[in-house]
């Protein structure tokens, strides 16, 4: 028997970003006892980095907006692979979820009438993103945190889950260790909500922090949950590219929403070329029309810089490949040019984009009110994740396991629209919390099995017992994995590279299992990285397998050997599940037919 503390709750939420906090608040409000577990300190999760805004059809700035338009935009942006029911619920419920935040202390920027202001963003037909300058994510996580700490939730900070615990076929809790001393805690729970965010650390250039190692995806997969859409990894078109130490750090789409334009080394606005057919009619013909759109002319169409992220990212890569990139391998993003149209443009930029101003000034020595930025694609978001029931967010195969936010899948299909992640985590965080509490109330208590816990503890401790000198060390191995994924499963993929990647992943897996970590159990990031690597390797395999199977280019998934969209793939999701022999199994699943009334909305919105 190992030494561990047992903690019992109705609902355990894993992850305390926006989705986890919102789920915990809802579950607690519904009367459940709630434990909230997070790898970092409370309030530091990646939601804090979200900049541009939260998408909700409040129609405060343009009264033509409605949930129907938001729904149609989301489906179009996702190339119609979205779980349509999630897209429907999301568009309908987002406005209420955003408004209630102000009742919890949030303060969004206002319209002249005193309503919540909204800004333009890629793929959204009307100004739809409620925001606070360019620090909307901070506003949201702090609001949820400051509300949540008064709701009777037990917060377990700097605690990492290494295994989900099962009671027969049902999820029964989680085994975790505290980072401070390496003490084990067994969380016993009638329902578990996974809200662990993304997988960005599987790639070399990423906007994600150390935490985003796909823990939720991997933990759920290993107890039998299905993963879906894993081939769709969003490469945000605008990450910093220089200096090397900041490569990948996000530059908000809000820069383009406020009028920022993309240029190549020849000074050409290349986004006006190759406009995709789906967006041809809604895109401006001239720079002049694009600017009128930015300043709110209802007759004008949006500038091509505000096309969806998948398209903009590919266009930047093309310019670089064809020798028209910026000095450090990106494109120029210019907001300073708006001085041609706006008096006091320097103050205007500082006011609308304060953290971007600060970030470039401090880290790159660039004054964005005067000079263009250099930007290039950065791994940003996983559209794929745990497959869930659209209404309840419960896993399709593991009763008692729920998922919300980035680690869940369905809403975004093949490509996510900017701003839809913050609304996603509010809408589905609330739903997951609500249904988890309901599930807990309606089901019998669970039993934890000591053998499962003992085994999980042994596994977690094994890197400390092995010789750290045997391989290159956990950080270097992670670096090798990131290199591999960046080169062979990144923004442009092809059969040969993907096949090699699968083989190389097997080799990395073997090495990771034999990897030793030096030092003790006390706050030892080397040991933690060794454990996180296991999750990363699982999600990397899922991304590569699904990317190899989808023989077309659609949304965020680009195949050099299958350059076009294939209508046959347009009705199919790829589902991954752990087979009986422990190998990853992949199957195609036809998307359920969309109800007539929703199809009508899509057609009406063009």
């Amino acid at each position, binding site marked *: 028997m190992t030494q561990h503390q047992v903690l019992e709750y109705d609902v355990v939420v894993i992850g305390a970003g926006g989705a986890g906090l919102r789920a915990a608040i809802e579950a607690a409000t519904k009367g459940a006892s709630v434990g909230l577990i997070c790898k*970092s*300190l409370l*309030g*530091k*999760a*990646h939601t*804090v*980095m979200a900049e541009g805004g939260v998408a909700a059809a409040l129609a405060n700035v343009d009264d033509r907006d409605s949930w129907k338009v938001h729904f149609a935009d989301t489906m179009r942006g996702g190339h119609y692979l979205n779980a349509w029911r999630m897209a429907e619920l999301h568009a309908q419920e987002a*406005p*209420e979820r955003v*408004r209630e935040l*102000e*009742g*919890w*202390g949030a*303060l*969004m*920027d*206002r319209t002249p*009438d*005193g*309503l*919540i202001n909204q800004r333009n963003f890629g793929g959204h037909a009307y100004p739809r993103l409620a925001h*606070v*300058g360019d*620090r909307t*994510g901070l506003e949201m996580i*702090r609001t949820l945190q*400051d*509300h949540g*700490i*008064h709701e009777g939730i037990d917060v377990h*900070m700097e605690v990492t889950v290494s295994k989900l615990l099962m009671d027969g076929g049902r999820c029964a809790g989680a085994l975790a260790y505290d980072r*401070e001393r390496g003490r084990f805690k067994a969380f016993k729970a009638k329902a578990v909500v996974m809200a662990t965010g993304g997988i960005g650390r599987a790639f070399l250039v990423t906007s994600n*922090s*150390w935490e985003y190692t796909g823990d939720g995806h991997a933990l759920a997969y290993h107890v039998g949950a299905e993963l879906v859409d894993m081939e769709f990894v969003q490469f945000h078109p605008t990450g910093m590219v220089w*200096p*090397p*130490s*900041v490569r990948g*750090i*996000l530059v908000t789409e809000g820069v383009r929403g406020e009028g920022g334009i993309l240029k190549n080394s020849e000074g050409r606005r290349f986004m006006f070329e190759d406009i995709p057919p789906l967006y041809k009619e809604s895109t401006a013909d001239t720079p002049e029309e694009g600017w009128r759109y930015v300043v709110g002319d209802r007759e004008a169409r949006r500038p091509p810089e505000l096309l969806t992220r998948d398209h903009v990212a590919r266009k930047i890569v093309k310019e670089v490949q064809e020798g028209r990139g910026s000095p450090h391998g990106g494109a120029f993003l210019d907001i300073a040019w708006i001085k041609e149209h706006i008096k006091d443009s320097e103050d205007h930029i500082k006011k609308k984009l304060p*953290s971007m101003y600060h970030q470039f000034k*401090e*880290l*790159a020595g660039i004054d964005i009110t005067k000079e263009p930025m250099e930007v290039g694609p950065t791994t940003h978001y996983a559209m794929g994740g745990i497959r869930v029931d659209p209404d309840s967010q419960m896993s399709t195969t593991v009763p008692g396991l729920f998922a919300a936010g980035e680690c869940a899948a369905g809403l975004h299909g093949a490509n996510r629209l900017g701003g839809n992640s913050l609304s996603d985590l509010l809408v589905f965080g609330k739903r997951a919390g609500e249904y988890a509490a309901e599930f807990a109330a309606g089901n019998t208590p669970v039993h934890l099995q000591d053998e499962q816990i003992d085994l999980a503890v042994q596994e977690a401790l094994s890197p400390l017992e092995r010789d*750290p000198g045997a391989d290159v*060390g*956990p*950080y270097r191995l992670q670096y090798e994995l990131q290199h591999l994924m960046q080169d062979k499963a990144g923004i442009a993929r092809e059969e040969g590279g993907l096949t090699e990647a699968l083989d190389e992943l097997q080799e990395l897996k073997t090495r990771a299992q034999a990897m030793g970590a*030096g*030092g*003790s159990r*006390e*706050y*030892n*990031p*080397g*040991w933690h*990285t060794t454990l996180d690597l296991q999750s990363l390797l699982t999600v990397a395999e899922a991304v590569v397998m699904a990317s190899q199977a989808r023989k077309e280019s659609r949304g965020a998934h680009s195949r050099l050997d299958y350059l076009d969209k294939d209508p046959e793939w347009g009705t199919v999701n790829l589902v991954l599940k752990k087979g009986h022999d422990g190998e990853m199994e992949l199957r195609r699943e036809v998307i359920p037919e969309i109800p007539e009334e929703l199809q009508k909305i899509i057609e009406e919105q063009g």
Partner: protein
Amino acid sequence: MKTTTFKVWQGNSDGGELKTYEVEVDQGYVVLDAIHRIQAEQANDLAVRWNCKAGKCGSCSAEVNGSPKLMCMTRVDALPADQPITVEPMRTFPVVKDLVTDVSWNYEVKASIKRFSPKTADHGDGSWDMDQYDVERSQEFRKCIECFLCQDVCHVLRDHQLHDRFAGPRHYVYVANMEMNPIDTGDRVAELREELGIGYCNITKCCTKVCPEGITITDNAIIPLKERVVDQSYDPLARLIKLVKGSGD
């Protein structure tokens, strides 16, 4: 690429020492990059907190050459090149290990403060009308990333260790954000004077100087709150009115 000498404090609550590392420093390196390089190549178990690496989460607070800083926003080339760079944990909080300190006290203080409580909504959909001018006052305070550097530098906490009776600048900013929110109805003045101990602050403005978000903590948060305390608690006219109305504190 050039080599720079770093002296990094390593140890735990039982004690520790500065350990010397030679680190290859790339163009544009911030202190956190150097710490990561040490972690990857020389000391795998070196403990450090970090998340966003872009000055937005407030995790990587430390004392660089003796000054409270975010390691992710401190450029190596902005520090004197002719001497080693020292990196130490925040001194105001107990050390857990290496650069990681126990900041749980901050979370406890915050949870003890009277929560936000809005007036009834202006509209049936649960929304309020607020003017941009009015929200901007609190928005300044809401930029706080909870890095706790202001707590670290404040002499009431750092030198006098009055953690049991003084909430510190971070929490006055937190209170100010609610007190100046146009729809909040709570009154935290008595709390400020008693449990939160705002009177111990003698406005030396050290907190304002170290704030990486540039929040004017002393002038915009603490002084107005102190004025409210004075107005409500010590103004003879206000006291008389309170006595008559029978709502003395």
